[in-house]
């Protein structure tokens, strides 16, 4: 195996694609993120269900999604909404990278996607039809291919001719951070030259949403003012806001990117995956496990803690989770913790579950390229339990050397990805 500093083992990001509640397309997403626009609105009426039976009545929906943007030859009605999101984000990322899989050795191009819930939209509709109509023979023949969790990674490979490694990672809220990390390891190990990595979820559905309500995980105090509901680190936060979306990053070896003279956004420098081995839905309160995951990711990247200038926090806006993450950051970075610029993308787009890590990764990559860290909206009254000097409701600008992406998921699992500014970073997109 080549040494870790070899261009064959270094991995860079060369393309980005986004479907989000604050914009379809990276340009719209980034513009709105810098402007601090909230994508959280009132929950749509679920067919026949009393809306007031839902404790939380706000959500971050992708309201302007048009399946017409799907690649030619893909039948929209045959894939679930979440996979449609993934396809649209991936097409943008491949265009952005100017990568044509058909010009590559197809067995050297892989796809690793994250999905938390998968094809819930269609799955719930068919379930309802079955129990209402009591006609098992009328369950749609496409149910199974649509609800399987790897339907997004599968359709991406089919649509774009990627014949290499094809996997789906499902670790709830951290799925797509792990997808990016596994893509890094896949290229490092020599299994692929290019990996299309990201994640998608679209599970704003009657059953799934009710489940999160019953878990008392969602915000309930801001039903009348949806844009204020997602407020990581703020004293009035009272739960997360469910969102939907997708993001895709094109990862390739530095050698491959140089060979084809690709524009390089950032380097994916390191990754760590751990289990807290603690509790299904609650993180270990002293932050030791999250701190350890960040430490292991830094070690993997060969970067000192002093080299980190920015953290895209997991920060879902729950009373329990946010302070644990800040405690972990303090534990690891000590006196430097207040000087790291920290933001929470979920303050604008809610928690997009399987897409959250990948959407956070896109903001990390753009922050490294532009020096701009998007605001954390609704950070009006800092909670002393999760206050740090580098959290702001304004855009912050500073040259950034390296950034961490934090993602912590149900099932007691943690992921941290380290991004580093490449030697010749290109400034693009304000």
């Amino acid at each position, binding site marked *: 195996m080549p040494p870790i500093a070899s261009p064959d083992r270094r991995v860079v990001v060369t393309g980005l694609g986004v479907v989000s509640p604050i914009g379809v397309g990276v340009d719209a997403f980034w513009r709105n993120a810098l402007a601090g626009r909230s994508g959280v609105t009132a929950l749509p009426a679920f067919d*026949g*269900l*009393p809306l*007031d*039976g839902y*404790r939380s*009545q706000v959500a971050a929906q992708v309201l302007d999604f048009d399946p017409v943007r799907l690649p030619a030859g893909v039948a929209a009605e045959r894939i679930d909404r979440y996979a449609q999101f993934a396809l649209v984000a991936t097409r943008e990322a491949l265009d952005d990278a100017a990568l044509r899989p058909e010009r590559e050795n197809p067995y050297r191009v892989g796809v690793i996607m994250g999905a938390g819930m998968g094809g819930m939209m269609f799955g719930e509709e068919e379930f309802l039809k079955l129990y209402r109509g009591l006609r098992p023979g009328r369950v749609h023949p496409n149910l199974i291919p649509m609800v399987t969790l790897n339907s997004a990674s599968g359709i991406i490979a089919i649509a774009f001719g990627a014949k290499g490694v094809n996997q789906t990672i499902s670790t709830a809220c951290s799925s797509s951070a792990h997808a990016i990390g596994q893509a890094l390891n896949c290229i490092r190990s020599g299994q692929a030259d290019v990996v299309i990595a990201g994640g998608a979820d679209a599970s704003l559905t009657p059953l799934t949403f009710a489940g999160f309500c*019953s*878990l*008392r995980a969602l915000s*309930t*105090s801001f*039903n009348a003012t949806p844009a204020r509901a997602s407020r990581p680190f703020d004293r009035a936060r*009272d*739960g997360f806001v469910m969102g939907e979306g997708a993001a895709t990053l094109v990862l390739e070896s530095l050698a491959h990117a140089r060979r084809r003279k690709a524009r390089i956004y950032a380097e994916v420098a390191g990754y760590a995956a751990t289990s807290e081995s603690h*509790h*299904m*839905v*609650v993180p270990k309160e002293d932050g030791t496990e999250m701190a350890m995951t960040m430490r292991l990711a830094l070690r993997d990247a060969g970067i000192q803690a002093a080299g980190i200038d920015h953290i895209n926090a997991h920060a879902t806006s729950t009373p*329990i989770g946010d302070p644990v993450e800040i405690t972990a950051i303090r534990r690891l970075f000590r006196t430097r913790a207040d000087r790291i610029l920290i933001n929470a993308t979920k303050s604008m787009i809610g928690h997009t579950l399987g897409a959250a890590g990948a959407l956070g990764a896109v903001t990390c990559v753009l922050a490294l390229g532009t020096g701009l860290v998007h605001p954390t909206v609704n950070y009006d009254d800092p909670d002393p339990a999760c206050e740090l000097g580098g959290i702001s409701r304004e855009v912050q600008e500073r040259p950034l050397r390296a950034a961490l992406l934090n993602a912590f998921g149900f099932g007691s699992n943690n992921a941290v990805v380290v991004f580093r500014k490449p030697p010749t970073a290109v400034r693009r997109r304000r």
Partner: protein
Amino acid sequence: MNPELDVAALTRAALAARLKRDVDAIRIQDDLRNDLGLDSLDMIELLFKIEEVFDLEIPNEDLVQIATVGDVIAYVERRLAAKAAAPAPMPSPATAASTSPAPKRAGRRPPARLKAASKRAPAKKKRT
């Protein structure tokens, strides 16, 4: 409140069933987290049961009022009394949104009863 509902017995029975302990081992003064060892998910599951048994909706804002077994009982009794006093229930502004009449409430079942509660708390009176 409904005099036929023995809130204390039902609550202790629900806890006993959840914790797989004898009802007598559940004391009024026990702290749910520190004495009985409930974690946050256990708490949510317990409240889910309590909501079903007493036909209540407990908003997140009210959770701070509940630390001990006695707190649960007092809270439920207070809410049931408020419900009995006001046929269109408006127990607190915080719960107003979640208890306003829903279009499909007509078919709503009467308060369910825990299987475990009916087995383990024979002393309680029958409800209509």
